[in-house]
């Protein structure tokens, strides 16, 4: 399968304050969206849509600006990862920030409808 040919060597480059979240060396994701986002970024980088360094530059900026550099917490780190990716695709003119916001709202509605496909008031 194609996955076995993937080369993750470039990821080693994400050292220092932008290093991928690890638990004593091991990459960690604590929710499926984090893996999905990571997969999207890796795939687009590997297919030549951007240079890893371009992404890294945005990630450093986002982390610096947020003042939160707790790479131990994937839920925080991958939010920064997502923000960096959003800025990169806007910079590349792949998609505008407005369109991402607009589609996110639609997706949010869709997800909540999946949870509540009929009227009831109990909590899952």
């Amino acid at each position, binding site marked *: *399968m*194609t*996955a*076995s040919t*993937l080369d*993750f*060597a470039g*990821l*080693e480059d994400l050292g220092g304050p932008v290093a991928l979240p*690890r*638990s*004593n*060396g*091991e*990459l960690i*994701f604590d*929710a*499926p*969206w984090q*893996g*999905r*986002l*990571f*997969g*999207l970024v*890796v*795939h*687009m980088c590997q*297919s030549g*849509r951007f240079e890893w360094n371009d992404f890294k530059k945005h990630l450093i900026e986002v982390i610096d600006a*947020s003042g*939160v550099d707790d790479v131990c917490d994937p839920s*925080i780190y*991958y*939010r*920064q990862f*997502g*923000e960096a*990716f*959003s800025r990169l*695709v806007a910079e590349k003119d*792949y*998609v505008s*920030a407005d*369109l*991402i*916001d607009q*589609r*996110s*709202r*639609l*997706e*949010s509605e*869709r*997800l909540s409808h999946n949870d509540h496909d009929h009227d009831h008031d109990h909590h899952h």
Partner: protein
Amino acid sequence: MDWISMADVEARVNALESLMVEKGLAEHEAVDAVVASFENDMGPVNGAKVVARAWTDPQYREWLLADATAAIADMGFTGLQTEHMVAVENTAERHNVVVCTLCSCYPWTLLGIPPAWFKYPQYRARVVKEPRSVLAEFGVTLADDVKIDVWDSSAEIRYLVIPQRPAGTEGLTAEELVPLISRDSMVGTALLTSSTGS
């Protein structure tokens, strides 16, 4: 919009992926492949390949036991998470089981995503104090004279258990043995038979 304060990150990620696919810049299947490679290809099958080679190549087995980091690197599993590996071998007299009492250190590249139970405080606390009964709860019942060694992972060292090769597999090649070797057997919470594997 600021991701840090945003609750619905899942919607945001879905939006990004669907937009990229619609623009012809990404493919869902390729994202699947990256995710799967972390879940599977970089997962237990790599550990199983190391074990199968050790079972079938005595020289490699000795190397693995003497210097697991180098022996595993020789299989191409380098970098990300296997910098300081130690291999411990199960025998008829001795059973090894791995835990991380501090957090959830785990040889990710070799064994994939850690199973949920590996992170449970109950497992982490109890397997050190009463390994025999914890193993029994996993279905691993060991004779009283089998010694149990519990290995506590740390930032410096992560462990790979070399399970005992199942009886009846003497004629199999390393490639044929790989599917028989389960993730849990390489953590020490399962034994293998000639038909097991996961």
